[in-house]
């Protein structure tokens, strides 16, 4: 039995608290510009001010406050995309695995296609045609997820289908829909939860990358990816503007991945290969 990963759990808890209580705990308005305080270093460096613990960016906005509000956006997008993309993948996986035949053939070909073609290109296309925004971003990131969910869940369903309780339900005259919803679905939920945790990191990196490429939530709403992107211009004079939000992304992703690995070993060690 592996040890409970307390450090990652604490990191995630802190980020969650930041996200939920953002307006209450952030010391400044994340969007308000104070140009005379621009590019101030963090408090531990020469010239840092106690007013701005992590310094300010090129517009004199408090980095700590933007970080706290950015956690909100990142986690909200991650949650919505995992529900949407994961949900679609789950349904397709169950449908393909249980129905078999041409349904499975068509759906799994689509899954293969999705694996060959990088989803980020469609995400960028969506941002240009539909316009930037929360909805577009969630759809774009869901595109990244559904195929891997569908593939794993289908594999699970293929073995479940052979089990006695499914045959029994069939003999008792359960409809196909009922078998899928009441007998198959509850039995793949463990796997689904493991997949969700293992993919939180993927989603957070995708959100940050799309924001960095100008296809995320439009400014001035603070997101971590956007903060790194904006900090790039002043990297020569003020490294902290880009480095601090990037560290936040790395820590969060590292924590959820470590937690996900642990959870997988607890709930479903067969998924080791993922």
């Amino acid at each position, binding site marked *: 039995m592996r040890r409970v990963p307390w450090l990652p759990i604490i990191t995630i808890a802190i980020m969650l608290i930041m996200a939920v209580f953002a307006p209450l705990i952030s010391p400044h308005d994340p969007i308000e510009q104070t140009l005379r305080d621009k590019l101030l270093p963090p408090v531990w460096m020469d010239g840092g001010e106690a007013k701005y613990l992590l310094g300010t960016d090129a517009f004199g906005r408090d980095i700590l406050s933007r970080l706290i509000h950015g956690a909100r956006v990142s986690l909200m997008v991650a949650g919505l995309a995992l529900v949407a993309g994961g949900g679609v993948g789950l349904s397709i996986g169950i449908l393909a695995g249980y129905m078999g035949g041409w349904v499975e053939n068509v759906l799994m070909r689509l899954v293969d*296609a999705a694996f060959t*073609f*990088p989803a980020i290109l469609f995400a960028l296309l969506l941002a240009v045609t539909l316009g930037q925004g929360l909805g577009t971003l969630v759809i774009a990131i869901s595109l990244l997820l559904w195929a891997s969910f569908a593939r794993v869940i289908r594999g699970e369903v293929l073995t479940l289908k052979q089990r006695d309780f499914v045959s029994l339900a069939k003999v008792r005259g359960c409809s196909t829909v009922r078998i899928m919803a009441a007998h198959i679905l509850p039995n793949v939920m463990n796997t689904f939860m493991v997949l969700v945790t293992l993919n939180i990191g993927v989603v957070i990196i995708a959100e*940050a990358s799309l924001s960095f*490429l100008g296809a995320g939530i439009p400014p001035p709403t603070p997101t971590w990816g956007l903060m790194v992107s904006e900090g790039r211009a002043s990297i020569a004079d003020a490294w902290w503007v880009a*480095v601090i939000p990037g560290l936040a992304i*790395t820590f969060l992703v590292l924590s959820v991945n470590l937690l996900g690995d642990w959870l997988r070993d607890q709930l479903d060690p067969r998924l080791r290969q993922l």
Partner: protein
Amino acid sequence: MGRFIVRRLLQGVVLLVLVTAIVFVLGRMTGSPVDLMLPEDATAEDRERLIRTLNLDGPVHTQFLTFVGNALHGDFGTSIRMRQPTLDVFMSRLPNTLAIIPWALLFAMSVGIPLGVVAAINRGRFLDRASGTVAVLGIATPSFWLGIVLIFIFAVELRWLPSGRMGGPEHYILPVITLGTFLTAGFMRLTRSSMLDVMESEYVKLARIKGLSETVVIWKHCLRNALIPVLTLWGVFVGNLITGAIVTETVFAWPGVGRLTYEAVIYRDFPLLQAVIILKAVLILSVNLVVDILYAYVDPRIRYS
């Protein structure tokens, strides 16, 4: 073998039609494609001409056929910002991307494969966990941020390397490391699990019984066979490379097709973006086809499955 190639080719064509259809539909979902494809200062004459070339007065299915027909003739429209045929723009940038990709792959393989082997030999011990940690860190670090940090350390602080743009060999180092790191963890994990499989096999036991040295057994007998599954994933790596190149080239102002994609997005240059996406799809599918054929050639079991 012939049937196998034909089947793969057909699958590729179907996928390409699918991608084209999605691009086509999205381009028409937001109202008038004319507004999406012409600069703001376009004249009434320009509009007329565009409506004629794209057959916008016709019904949707003939519009799609015109769209595909134009594409097959190499006409992917005109870039709004650069006022040049998008195909020409793409082709002029492609060599710059192809100039870093082999080096990035080489970097990723020469770091990832040995790490994977070392992890597999020391399964469950310190070195395994250490290289596992490196892989997890590599996955958790967003590559755009890694690129910026490398610029800060090596270009701004130490002044050893240039911060971007194309040029002599020293311009390649940071982009190659950034793009390579993006792929290293994948190579490492795959090599590790594939090595673990091979190390259990009969011929490896035989090699040991024959009294060959451990070094020869691991690096010659095991690794050679363990690399086959790693190489099949080249197809997947092409997709990853294309994604990674967008971010890396953006950070380092590298004038390749990745940076071109970014420019198409921020300048809302729709004709350019649609061309870039379709051409990248062609690229990915051709590489996949070549890899599949090579693999079927190396491993005959694939042809019949």
